[in-house]
């Protein structure tokens, strides 16, 4: 059993490392085309990473070891999330169930590492970005937990793989009001967590409006490369999770070669579709004022909470 899980995990890591920069490239490309621009091409993120690999890494005098170790922790947590979340296959390790709280905690380790890198820079921008990022992460967590809790009630367990498998076996539950409410809440939470448009504008230059960018403002060369890759991996993993929950078919339930191939192909398609929809939506949305974001998150939490109470009514009626 573990062998199958191990191969799936390896496949998931390799696929996500290759695909997530392309996903970001695709999202920028879609956005450019909608704005009438030609856009830098889907491979541009990989070119950025290659350039950052050969660029020189500068370390300011005030910064300590955290500026060096932080980016590595972010990437490792990104990779771990890719292993734990049922993207290609839903076969968990026996001794390590991909439990909801474990996945969220691994994500949060990355968030904390990024925030500490921002703080260690010792500049006003780093502190500002880190403070806002942590505030939003603190407010997003109830939504994520309660939303996936709502999805776990019909299944009876909070392990993500069992939720996905249960949704494959019972297609009706995918379209039920419970999962729709929970998924809308989850989308808002993912957008807030990965710093996409309504909450934070990734391509802004005005330092005072930044959240994610402000934390990486001091990192250069290799550090910046790891930070970017880590963030892209998290975005890819979370979008993959949304994809697996929204369209569970195609997720491999055993480690056979055919199932894995189908899993990989459907994963890439799902990511491409979700990525372009998100990018297209971003063109129409302007950045929210920072103190309107808690209202958005409160709204998403209420949706998740309604999903939980609705799941009782549905279970009762069903």
């Amino acid at each position, binding site marked *: 059993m573990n062998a199958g899980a191990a191969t799936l995990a390896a496949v998931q890591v390799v696929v996500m490392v290759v695909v997530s920069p392309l996903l970001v490239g695709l999202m920028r490309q879609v956005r450019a085309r909608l704005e009438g621009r030609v856009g830098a091409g889907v491979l541009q993120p990989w070119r950025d990473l290659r350039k950052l690999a050969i660029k020189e890494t500068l370390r300011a005098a*005030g910064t*300590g070891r955290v500026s060096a170790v932080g980016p*590595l922790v972010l990437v490792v947590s990104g990779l771990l999330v890719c292993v734990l979340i049922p993207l290609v296959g839903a076969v968990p390790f026996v001794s390590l169930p991909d439990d909801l709280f474990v996945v969220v905690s691994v994500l949060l380790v990355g968030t904390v590492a990024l925030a500490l890198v921002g703080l260690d820079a010792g*500049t006003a921008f780093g502190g500002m970005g880190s403070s806002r990022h942590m505030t939003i992460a603190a407010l997003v967590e109830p939504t994520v*937990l309660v939303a996936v809790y709502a999805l776990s009630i019909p299944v009876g367990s909070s392990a993500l793989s069992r939720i996905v498998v249960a949704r494959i076996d019972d297609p009706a539950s995918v379209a039920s009001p419970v999962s729709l409410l929970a998924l809308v809440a989850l989308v808002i939470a993912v957008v807030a967590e990965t710093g996409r448009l309504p909450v934070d504008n990734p391509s802004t230059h005005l330092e005072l409006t930044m959240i994610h960018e402000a934390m990486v403002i*001091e990192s250069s060369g290799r550090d910046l490369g790891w930070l970017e890759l880590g963030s892209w991996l998290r975005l890819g993993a979370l979008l993959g999770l949304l994809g697996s929950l929204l369209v569970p078919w195609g997720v491999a339930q055993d480690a056979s070669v055919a199932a894995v191939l189908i899993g990989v192909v459907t994963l890439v398609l799902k990511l491409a579709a979700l990525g372009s929809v998100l990018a297209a939506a971003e063109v129409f949305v302007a950045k929210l004022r920072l103190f309107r974001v808690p209202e958005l998150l409160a709204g998403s939490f209420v949706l998740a909470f309604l999903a939980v109470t609705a799941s009782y009514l549905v279970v009762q009626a069903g």
Partner: protein
Amino acid sequence: MTQVEVGLWAQLVLALATVSIAVLARPALRARLAGSAAAALGVAGAVTGVIALTGGQGRLVIPLALPVDPVVLSPTPLGGFFMVVAGAVGAVAAVYAIGYVHGPSASSTSWAAFATFLLGMQLVPGAADAVSFLLAWELMAAASTVLVLTEHRERIEVRSAALWYAVMTHLSFLLILIGFAVLSAAGHGTSFAAMSHVDPESAGASIAFVLLVLGFATKAGIVPMHVWLPRAHPAAPSHVSAVMSAAMVKMGVYGVLLVVLQLLPAGRPWWGLVLLALGTVSALYGILQASVATDLKRLLAYSTTENVGLMFLAIGTGVLLRAYAVVGPAEVAAGTTLLLVASHAAFKTTLFLGAGSVLHATGVRDLDRLGGLGKRMPTTAAAFGIGALGAAALPITCGFVAEWALLQSLIHGARPEDRLVAVVMPLAVAVVALTAGLALMTFVKAYGIAFLARPRGPEAGVAHEGPASMRVALVVSAVVVVGLGLLPGVMARAVVRAVGLGGIDVFGVSGLGLPGVGAALDPVALTGLTLLVAVSVLVVTWRMARRRPPRPVELAWGGGGVRVSPRMQYTATSYAEPLSRVFDDALRPERDLEITHAGESRYLVERVQFRQQLEDVVEVRAYAPGVRLVDRIGLAARRLQNGSIHRYLGYSFVALIAVLIVVSL
């Protein structure tokens, strides 16, 4: 003489030894000798606790000269668990104190009080009947009040803090006394065994339950009776506040568990709701105040309120679910309380000892003037970091395991057929999640502002690492935090025996299994997977670092500005400012802005002064009016006695008439 009795005797003897050393030894030797004796007392307590936990029986009767019946000590497994926690924390704090104490905290009174304090915390879980429980409780309270007062000559606010603490502690003593009285009246006997025969459905049981829970909640620092905690901890010396926060507060939790598990086991559903309500309010309010606190020890004190709130939430869930016959998650919830107790004791001791060594090195507790201590105090930074990870419940620490178990019991506790439970459980999940998120924010702020970037004040610039004994204690407690996180199986066995219910057991080599709920967690496997994944990243980084070593640069990129001074960095206040704006109505910060215009024109500004004051809303709203009311009654009473003889004679005249009337009725 069974082993347990030997252990108890050993503790009494060691306590006496410590006190005598404290009084007799020369000041130079006193710290080392008394410290090691106190550490031995802690270890003896822990060992006795382990023996009691693993089923050791023992009954020690100590006759007292007082006409009250003798002190009876026979620790139950539940009591044993808390003796282990209190003993271990006491031992580590004693070792730490050897290097830490200076000035008034090194005096003989404070060492003697410290020994009595540790002894008191061992006797409370060991007591077998109400009278000895109350005696031990008062011993603990008195000793800790003396300890809080150690530095009253140096800082004025210590006196008011000690006053608040003494009043609140004895308020809790009073409530517990009345509660036990009601119970022993109903159970016809003051021993816990007699009291456990009381029928939980009776009114007496409910009254006693409410009184006892309020009494223990005041000691545990539950909102709204938490007001003494953020005052007493910054006032007490660090090793004392570590023991108070990590062990003494748990005696309140022990009391509630005693009531819920032993005295009135089959509780009513609304008991669970009361505990749940207290727990959720305290967890949220505590962590909110912690996230905006700038005084390091005040932050840790509020985080204790939060953690104790989570424990009450777990107990409440256990009682509520057992009342609705949802057995699996109920047992898990009860067991989770003890996991939370052990994990909080571990990481809170680390954090307080870390804060102590920061205070020892810089003499400053205000985060806004600290910074850059990571390079200057590596051991403290590492230990405080691990403690902070534990407090934020991040993987591979004991906090993560405890919070994981709590969430499992909440998530699997929901049973749709009961409307009330169906609504309460998701709310509890949301509260735990928000608390975890805010705890994350709090400890990133505490660690990031204190240890990273550049020193914001002159004191932080000249900081240096503390003496050896402090570093040893820090390392030991940090190792325990990671150890319990990696091998939770050890805790699982102890918890099952202490609570006497199933629900939690060892999974695989040392993982934590929750059969009642069908969930399991093996942190060792998680660590293995992390290392496997991290290897590739480390190899790539190592190769790149060899090809292009990083170049040190003198200034960070501050937008090209010429002077990137440390004062431009974010401070703890500014870090928590978005949060205080989001939770504005819960925190009620008082902000006033003074703009002095240059000359008469409205547009030229000479000076802008912004001041923000974050009060404890509960204290301002509930306690301040209460204190003012008492003052007014006092003033009115003073008018009664205004020196006029006629008024006094008039009182006795009226009294005489009243008596005559009453007699004649």
